[in-house]
């Protein structure tokens, strides 16, 4: 029963990542990130061994609020200031991104089957799902033009690493989680402010046009 719930949640997470790869509406992407945060909180409750239920609940609730509510709110504010609705013309097209995602999924599952995982998680899907999310995060940072998409990629990367963390470590790390959450919060806050400044300075938020500083003499 719990196994099925965990599997379902991981499959939903993977689906949100696929949607992030394939959709070009930035508002939709932000909502996907919010949903991911919520799913991760629920998954955290299921995956931790019940050593200290109160701690686990607080942590999960905190991460759900932070990732599901606060970050999307900050990012949609930045999006509104920047007057951008869609991601136009990324470096890697959406269809190709999805195909790359499919390939990465296959690689992640085969890697997950091969690594000696510490204990029997029961579900063989959690670790490959985390690896897949890390790949999607990197891919989004590298292949998208708008600064906001790069911040979303960073958030997905952090989510993937967080999932890896709660999958592998079962018995304690409260401070790590708190520190991670705090740092990611401040990072997103500062990045949001930066996006606002970029928009004001350049009139767009496409980072491939931030190319003044280079070493090659014109």
């Amino acid at each position, binding site marked *: 029963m719990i196994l*099925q719930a965990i599997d379902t949640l991981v499959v939903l997470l*993977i*689906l949100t990542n696929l949607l992030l790869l394939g959709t070009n509406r930035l508002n939709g992407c932000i909502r996907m990130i919010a949903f991911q945060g919520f799913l991760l909180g629920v998954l955290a409750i299921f995956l931790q061994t019940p050593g200290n239920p109160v701690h686990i609940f607080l942590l999960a609730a905190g991460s759900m609020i932070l990732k599901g509510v606060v970050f999307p709110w900050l990012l949609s504010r930045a999006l509104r200031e920047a007057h951008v609705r869609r991601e136009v013309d990324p470096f890697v097209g959406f269809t190709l991104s999805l195909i790359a995602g499919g390939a990465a*999924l296959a690689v992640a*599952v085969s890697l997950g089957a091969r690594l000696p995982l510490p204990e029997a998680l029961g579900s063989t899907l959690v670790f490959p799902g985390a690896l897949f999310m890390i790949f999607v995060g990197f891919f989004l940072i590298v292949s998208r033009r708008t600064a906001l998409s790069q911040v979303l990629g960073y958030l997905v990367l952090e989510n993937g690493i967080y999932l890896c963390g709660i999958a592998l470590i079962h018995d304690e790390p409260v401070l790590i989680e708190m520190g991670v959450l705090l740092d990611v919060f401040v990072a997103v806050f500062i990045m949001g402010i930066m996006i606002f400044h970029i928009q004001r300075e350049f009139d767009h938020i496409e980072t491939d046009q931030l190319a003044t500083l280079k070493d090659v003499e014109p």
Partner: protein
Amino acid sequence: MIMATLHLFMALTLSPLLLGIINRTKALFAGRTGQPLLQLYYDLAKLLRKGAVYSRTTTWVFRAGPVIGLASVLMASALVPFGGRPSLLSFPGDFLVLACLLGLARFFTILAALDTGSSFEGMGASREAAFSALAEPALLLSLAAVALRSGRLSLSSMLVSPLAWGHLAPALWLVAAAVFVVLLAENARVPVDDPATHLELTMIHEVMVLDHSGPDLAFILYGAALKLWILGAVWVGIVAPFGGMNPWTGTLFALAAILGLAVFIGVIESLMARLRLSRIPPLLVGAGVCALLALLVARP
């Protein structure tokens, strides 16, 4: 054997009814009364009585296209099980043959469209080729996932008895979603293609058959209805295989399921708009990746 023949007979006679149900549902949603349920039968009868007009620029390919299309679809309908009983023809690997037969029908439709030498048909043919190329992996991966789960390689064994998906239920939903998207794509339904559009720049299937008339058009319309029945039966077999019960009850339930599927397609057509052409490839590839995920999850 008898049941299989009965199911084949049902497919042959009842498939135009599905299109009628879809149109009726859409009309009801729009507040109209709509076409009669048996409209496609009347259309087919009318078209069979007419003569065909062939353009001077076409060759034998143009005349062969509809015939081969109908023949392959008829063949394919003999492969698909229905109502929890095996089909008329079944052998290991027949799901690949199913995909290939559907592909053959599509191939000759495209060839016939190109044969006319008109740019409109060519445009539709190129779109059709592109989208089918993306939809086919989705179908094959979904069927592979089901084959992996059931451990058999024949459609009649995969789609007949209820599989114990158990904790792999997410894989079932993924496969169902992927096959449903393929169904919509193959049968030119919204959100992939709007069957009621008259704007040539937005047509995909419609524009390929612009030049056919008379019995050829009848063959094409009937073949399309059969294809809907076939893919619908596959979908019902994946989601709700009715094996293990009395064959008559199973047939009845499956019939109800496929008619319900037609209503569902009608509802979706009424609620959604067609996607922009540039957004269809990500949808199809997304369905393919969902099927891949189901395949990876269903590994024993």
